[in-house]
């Protein structure tokens, strides 16, 4: 079960991602070459600190109305059901959630941390309160193909809601059903983001469109994707983020054999005609099952048309399409579907073409959690699941290899993904009788390969043996596992000069907003704020108040900072240490080579995607 299954609700509104952009250029991490202009907004002549240097990383849900709700039997909740007047909102008790890049050289898996999701009545009273399990986006693509910059991108977030608290929802048949469906204590949430506005002169600066779904989940299922039928397009070389060859982006369907229905998810898969606008008419779309007989003849069993063109379709359905719309699947159809690929057919001028299809054999493998932060000596366990036509794929051979192609190091910035010794993991693994495999990935100190950026980022790609690159299978560039592996940091006892000063200086450089509260580059300013700093650095990772917001501090460094803030000298101040001998060269004079100002002006993700190592090689 997942957000695709009823009972589910759909919502539509705006999100805010007020990210800081000084840290979007990895070279800005270099204290020695940092100049004050990097804290200024970009101009026509200079990228400076890009388009939002004063960003605070806040993530907000704004004006998210519940647009429809589907009851367990597949019927829509009545307009009189209170859920239809309700909202999806974020926390009304804490600060805003935070949107956080894994690293300046891996900005394409930004996670939302500390997000509380609420269903609230029109007066803001909480009907359901739950915590979003921090998760990154996936499947970023050229959703507005004629657009440019971050505004052309679409991406999806999928996670689970934990710690659910319900108010009295007995007045709402839908919410009563949703509460019953959450008997495992979790719900599934999926939302798509697009139309993100990076123009600081625009009224909707830092805002974008969010449309999503909340539905049932089971604790035993993957949290960050749905193990179902996976449609795999081929990417066109002309794409910026990703341009699917048949105009339809990666998508998922599940077959509900009890209801005899297919739930197809197109929320992040159909192109739009304007920034955050309606779907482009790309022709008549329908779902079919491609049945190939013994003679190699393929027939397409029609399973229903996809009515995506109507006004308000996206907001009303969030892209969930239930097929066939007007009947149950027959036993024969169910039987065909179980062992043959699903395809979406596109009809233009009377000609049908396959817009997107499942891979041959319907084979697919995914790691559930796909972003990890590791200290040296720590192990991450990848939960891999292989499926064939949505069913467990047993005894499948999965190959795993380091893949830095999508990381954003190199050029003027330090290289990403090296040395390989930062991660140790098996090169292959076989799935068990449930199609699952666990892979332990052990982190070792990378040895400071990036000098001024702590640790290193890596990508590990799990691939089914038969779909290894080179085979005739379509390939999802985004389906890999990202790691930030920190270096060791020793300080006994930690002092300011030469030890923690550079760490704090870097945060002061990269997050000019902090100057409104304290000057992190100033020992005196820190001394005046010891108590709040001790609290903020000591919080749980999931707390939206955690410092640093970026969650890029190794365990060693956090421990050292907390010890330094706590074990004060007799005058009540943290240990200062010995000032270093003044450096002969003026650091401020030498600005580092920076990323292309053209890319920087178009948006953070746009510039990151251009910096990927795969693009550097092809240049």
């Amino acid at each position, binding site marked *: 079960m997942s957000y695709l299954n009823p009972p589910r609700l759909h919502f539509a509104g705006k999100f805010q991602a007020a990210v800081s952009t000084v840290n979007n250029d990895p070279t800005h991490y270099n204290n020695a070459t940092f100049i004050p202009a990097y804290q200024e907004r970009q101009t026509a002549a200079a990228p400076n600190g890009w388009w939002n240097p004063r960003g605070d990383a806040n993530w*907000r849900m*704004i004006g998210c109305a519940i647009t429809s709700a589907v009851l367990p039997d597949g019927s829509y909740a009545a307009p009189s059901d209170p859920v239809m007047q309700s*909202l999806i909102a974020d926390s009304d*008790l*804490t600060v*805003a959630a935070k949107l956080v890049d894994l690293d300046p050289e891996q900005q394409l898996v930004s996670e939302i941390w500390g997000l509380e999701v609420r269903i609230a009545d029109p007066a*803001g009273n909480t009907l359901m309160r739950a915590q979003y399990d921090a998760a990154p986006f996936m499947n970023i693509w050229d959703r507005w193909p004629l657009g440019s910059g971050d505004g052309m991108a679409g991406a999806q977030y999928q996670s689970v809601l934990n710690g659910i608290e319900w108010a009295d929802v007995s007045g709402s048949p839908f919410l009563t059903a949703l509460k019953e469906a959450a008997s495992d204590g979790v719900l599934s949430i999926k939302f798509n983001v697009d139309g993100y506005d990076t123009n600081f002169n625009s009224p909707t600066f830092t805002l974008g469109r969010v449309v999503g779904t909340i539905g049932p989940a089971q604790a035993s299922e993957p949290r960050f994707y749905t193990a179902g039928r996976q449609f795999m397009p081929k990417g066109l070389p002309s794409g910026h983020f990703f341009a699917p060859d048949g105009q339809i982006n990666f998508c998922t369907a599940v077959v509900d054999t009890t209801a005899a229905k297919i739930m197809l998810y197109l929320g992040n898969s159909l192109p739009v005609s304007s920034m955050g606008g309606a779907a482009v008419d790309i022709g008549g779309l329908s779902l079919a099952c491609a049945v190939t007989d013994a003679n190699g003849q393929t027939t397409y069993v029609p399973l229903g048309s996809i009515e995506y063109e109507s006004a308000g379709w996206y907001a009303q359905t969030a892209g969930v399409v239930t097929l066939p719309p007007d009947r149950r699947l027959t036993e024969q159809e169910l039987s065909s579907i179980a062992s043959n690929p699903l395809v979406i057919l596109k009809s233009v001028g009377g000609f049908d073409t396959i817009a997107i299809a499942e891979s041959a054999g319907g084979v697919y493998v995914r790691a559930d959690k796909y972003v990890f932060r590791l200290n040296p000596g720590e192990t991450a366990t990848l939960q891999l699941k292989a499926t064939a036509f949505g069913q467990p794929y047993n005894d499948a051979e999965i190959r795993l290899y380091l893949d830095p192609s999508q990381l954003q190091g190199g050029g003027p910035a330090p290289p990403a993904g090296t040395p390989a010794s930062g991660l140790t993991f098996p090169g292959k693994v076989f799935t068990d009788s449930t199609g699952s495999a666990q892979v332990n990935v052990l982190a070792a100190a990378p040895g400071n390969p990036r000098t001024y950026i702590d640790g290193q980022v890596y990508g590990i790609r799990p691939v089914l043996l038969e779909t290894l690159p080179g085979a005739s299978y379509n390939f999802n560039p985004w389906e890999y596992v990202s790691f930030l592996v920190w270096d060791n940091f020793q300080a006994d006892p930690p002092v300011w000069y030469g030890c923690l000063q550079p760490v704090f200086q870097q945060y002061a450089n990269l997050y000019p907003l902090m100057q409104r509260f304290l000057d992190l580059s100033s020992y005196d300013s820190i001394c005046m704020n010891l108590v*709040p700093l001790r*609290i903020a650095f000591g919080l749980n990772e999931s707390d939206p108040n955690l410092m640093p917001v970026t969650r890029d501090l190794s365990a060693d460094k956090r421990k050292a900072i907390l010890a330094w803030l706590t074990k004060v000298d007799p005058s009540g101040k943290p240990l200062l240490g010995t000032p270093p001998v003044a450096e002969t060269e003026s650091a401020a004079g030498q600005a580092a080579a920076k990323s292309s100002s053209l890319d920087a002006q178009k948006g953070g993700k746009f510039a990151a995607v251009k910096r990927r190592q795969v693009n550097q090689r092809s240049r």
Partner: protein
Amino acid sequence: MLEQTQKLLLDPKLISEMDGPNGLHCALQRAIELEHATLPTYLYSYYSLGTSNPAIQRLMLSIILEEMLHFALACNILNAIGGSPAIDKPDFIPRFPGKLPGGVESGLTVHLKRFSLDHVFDTFMVIEAPDEPLSFPLLAVADRPVTIADFYTKIAKEIEAAGPSIFTGSPTRQVTGGFPALEIFPVTGVESALRAITLIKEQGEGTTTSPLDEQGQFAHYYRFAEIWHGYRLRPVLDPPPGTPDDQKYRYDGAPIPFDAAGVSPAVSNPNSKLYCATSQARYLNNSFNYTYTSLLKALHLTFNGQPSRLNSAIAVMHSLRELALEMMRIPVDAHHTAGPSFEYQPVNP
């Protein structure tokens, strides 16, 4: 030198009604509302100060933090006697421009205005004016309206008269801790309740013989007067015996420079409708009001049995400043920038 002669006067019923049933509970709820009510107007001016007025900023922040402490202590007293502070409700927030809540009767109209010395004199020094200001004659009118000090004095008397038996509240509802300068202590009986009331009175007004409170800090009124005069208040060295109390200090210490050009020209008394429905200012104002309402909700829970939420609530308060400063960079007309409207808004529309 010119001193503020106006003061904030309360409805005498506030005192007479304290003798009735539940009188002390109602009075403390009024006190909580009143302690909170000054914050939007102080904060609005504080937010507008810009970066070139650090000395004024520090003085104002010290006052704001103490107002929050008073708010917390009043809540602790109410909890200690078995009450429940009501914080999360629309009418908890005063309207601007308007009178302060809690039965404030004097003609003072309180505004959300950017910082100016006139605003300090005309509003802040009136709000904090001592009951018996040093250097000024008393208001010797029979049946005069009551001052905030009278009000707290009466609360203290009622508590003393009632004795330990009224302290029926669960000690687990007491909120303690907080950041430095906000050291909230628990109220568990007559002694701690009276200590809290004395602290509230003295930090606001000083004592009857000195501008200092018991912690040796200048009371709020005198801190605002320092800002207004532009100099720190300092004791006269070796005053001869018999020197009147109001001659023992002078505003002739370190200068407190005021850079008027550094103040954000934030609009006065904004409300959300002032800002175009689709504008950066409106979105920010909506987020500000939602966050401000969230702060009230968080404080309500903090002071109704969930004291561990205090730090999280304080963080919400800090995030308000972030939003306000961003608003105060956005022009709304040729002469003004936006500013937050401090409205109860439990949804972010």
